[in-house]
């Protein structure tokens, strides 16, 4: 299952160091105890699926089976929604300050168990421990702390004078940031007094089940959070359930459209956070060394499996050569391999299916005439791996410039003027993220206004904070998560 890297040398090679080779520095697996099997978490209890079906979850870095998880069908979804409905009355009647106590407690437990959760997430997802430890887990805890603070201040959030919760929220999340996407969904829902049925992704169910345990540890009332594991059919049953008041989905645009069709004509509220084809725009007066870091972080963070990834580099033609030379030199120092090694920069692709899609699109890029380059790197023999890849000579007409690859593949395009940069950046069905690199403040402000993207980063990329709203334009979805805006999706006014 391995896509071998092409090992053509960069024009100005900077060989990885031979003198100072880092010894393996693996994070210990002993901090996490994964049970051989897990049930569904419904009404405060783990239980087997009604039909008794199970599925396996793998470690993508080794294809090792980590555990067996219950497969929830429509009956299980129904039981979970009933449990959530049953819990809603008491939960929503609690004073905000009381709900906040539970959220603060959950946040603290997440911090206390963060090492365990980071290792678990790295095992189940394949992403490097450096990222789960330094990005995912701190952000997860921060989200719960942040929304805990809102729970008793909802009347002052600008969502009307007496905002009310909606009821039962059906939440379907992706596999790229399993626990973080859970936090983005669950924290605002609970703070506002809703109850939750959450369906984690098929390939990464474990951290949500550990979260269920954290809910029990925090003494959260039964039925407030329910977790139903399964596949697309489980998710479809959940969003179609008649007693659900709110649907929140993060995932692909194809599935998002299906959900929108399902929900159409009902009184369910809907927010969608879908795909993207983010443009990272580098002007000739950019702080170059930092721009190169931002390009690398923009597309190789989480193996590029990020909906807001900067997957299109738009570089001003006058500096194209030096930016590309510097980028290739930098990519030659990326450390690809064992996700549990504390020095790994790029880990495994999440699934065989995803790897096949990345491989197919990269081959299309070559077939359509773009030039493919990867740094010399040795990929492990087992598991799902794809070398960091850069395509140059890409035009707007190429598939790799238009379709979301959701992998460590960067498409490089050029522009001549700011207007051309904006036109190219906006020339996509998506509108989730964009980055601007320039030392000129006035240009940043002007472009940020012109770019049709939900998030525009200036001289940085992939920066997240619970106080900052996140969401898309066009086919990247609608609704905002995070910040005060994130409350609106879970409240209605008098």
């Amino acid at each position, binding site marked *: 299952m391995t896509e071998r890297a092409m090992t053509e040398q960069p024009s100005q090679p900077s060989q990885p160091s031979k*003198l100072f080779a880092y010894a393996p*520095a693996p994070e210990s697996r002993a901090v996490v105890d994964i049970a051989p099997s897990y049930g569904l978490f419904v009404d405060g209890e783990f239980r087997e699926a009604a039909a008794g079906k199970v599925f396996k979850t793998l470690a993508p870095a080794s294809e090792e089976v980590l555990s067996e998880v219950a497969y929830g069908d429509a009956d299980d979804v129904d039981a979970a929604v009933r449990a959530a409905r049953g819990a809603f009355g008491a939960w929503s009647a609690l004073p905000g300050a009381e709900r906040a106590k539970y959220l603060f407690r959950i946040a603290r437990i997440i911090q206390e168990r963060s090492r365990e959760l980071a290792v678990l997430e790295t095992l189940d997802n394949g992403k490097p421990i450096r990222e789960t430890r*330094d990005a995912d887990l701190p952000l997860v805890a921060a989200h719960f702390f942040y929304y805990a603070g809102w729970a008793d201040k909802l009347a002052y959030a600008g969502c009307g004078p007496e905002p009310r919760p909606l009821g039962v929220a059906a939440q379907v999340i992706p596999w790229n940031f399993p626990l973080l996407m859970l936090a983005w969904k669950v924290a605002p829902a609970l703070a506002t007094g809703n109850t939750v049925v959450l369906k984690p992704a098929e390939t990464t169910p474990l951290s949500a089940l550990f979260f269920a345990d954290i809910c029990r540890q925090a003494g959260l009332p039964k039925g407030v959070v329910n977790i139903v594991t399964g596949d697309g059919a489980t998710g479809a049953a959940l969003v179609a359930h008649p007693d659900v008041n709110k649907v929140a989905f993060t995932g692909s645009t194809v599935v998002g459209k299906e959900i929108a069709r399902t929900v159409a004509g009902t009184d369910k509220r809907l927010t969608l956070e879908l795909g993207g084809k983010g443009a990272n725009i580098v002007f000739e007066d950019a702080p170059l*060394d930092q721009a190169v*870091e931002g390009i690398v972080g923009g597309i190789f963070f989480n193996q590029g499996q990020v909906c807001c990834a900067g997957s299109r580099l738009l570089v001003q033609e006058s*500096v194209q050569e*030096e930016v590309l030379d510097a980028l290739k030199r930098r990519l030659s120092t990326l450390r690809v391999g064992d996700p549990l090694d504390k020095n790994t920069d790029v880990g495994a692709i999440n699934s065989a299916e995803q790897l096949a899609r990345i491989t197919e699109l990269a081959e299309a890029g070559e077939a359509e005439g773009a030039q493919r380059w990867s740094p010399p790197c040795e990929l492990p023999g087992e598991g799902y791996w794809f070398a960091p890849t850069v395509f140059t000579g890409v035009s707007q007409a190429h598939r790799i410039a238009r379709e979301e690859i959701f992998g460590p593949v960067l498409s490089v395009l050029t522009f001549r003027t700011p207007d051309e940069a904006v036109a190219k950046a906006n020339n996509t069905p998506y509108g989730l993220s964009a980055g601007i690199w320039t030392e000129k403040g006035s240009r940043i402000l002007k472009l940020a206004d012109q770019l049709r993207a939900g998030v525009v980063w200036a001289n940085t990329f992939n920066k997240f904070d619970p106080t900052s709203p996140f969401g898309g334009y066009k086919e990247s979805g609608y609704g905002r998560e995070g910040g005060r805006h994130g409350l609106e999706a879970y409240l209605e006014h008098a």
Partner: protein
Amino acid sequence: MSTDAAPRDAGRGSLSDVVTSDAALRRFLQGLPGVDAVGLEARAAALGTRSIKTTAKAYAIDLAISMIDLTTLEGADTPGKVRSLCAKGANPDPGDRSAPRVAAICVYPDMARVAKEALAELGAGEINVASVATAFPAGRAAMPVKLADTREAVAAGADEIDMVIDRGAFLAGRYLQVFEEIREVKAACGGAHLKVIFENGELATYDNIRRASWLAMLAGADFIKTSTGKVGVNATPPNTLLMLEAVRDFRAATGRQVGVKPAGGIRTAKDAVKYLVLVNETLGDDWLSPDWFRFGASSLLNDLLMQRQKLSTGRYSGPDYVTVD
């Protein structure tokens, strides 16, 4: 060959034009790409999380010891103190003769001869004597005084001269004056290597540090050095990383390799290893030697030795098991 940080037309060989006038030099230095402080600091912090264990740690500790400019720059320095420091540099760990020697002993000019003789007596002639000069640390003296200071040090046997730039002139925008001063001191050094100290804490902005780096390299510096150790902010991982990027880009533009010396505030083995990670991942093998990277430090050596003893014995020792000099 492209020039990552140099202005677009600054290809190999064309750089002599930029020092023909104050205006040309200012245009060149101010045309260097800006530095985004947040991004630079984030990169330095990210590299600071590298986990250096077992064989890699042993390599890094020995390399760090061999890169130390073991320093005493006190008003209270005496020949006895300097001789004792030389003995420490020659035999850092009396209990383990396999510990490498330091790169240089760094002293004030009037102590250069003492250091030179002491090292010769110890049979440690390969350890260089580095002398600060040019009215260190403030640099507030007339140019003839600075040059005389330099010549004295060289005559007393200094192999390396650590000069300070005139920060006042730099901050006032008189770049060509700073350039000429470095050139004259370089000429006064003769065969001695010249390290140029910027005093990053006084230059204050990262943009200034990048400009000072190019200015000093254009003027002929063999090494660029962060600081004197005498002000509030000395070497930091971000300001050192920035200087590493500057020497990388300068070599790409001119073919000439320049060394880097962070100084001041690096006290622990853990810190030293972080700096070596910066060198490793920014410049690679070509700079991983005492010829191209140095630590200006005094207390760092003992912490490196304690970590070294821990690696070889499996036990932590204590300050009573390393020598105080």
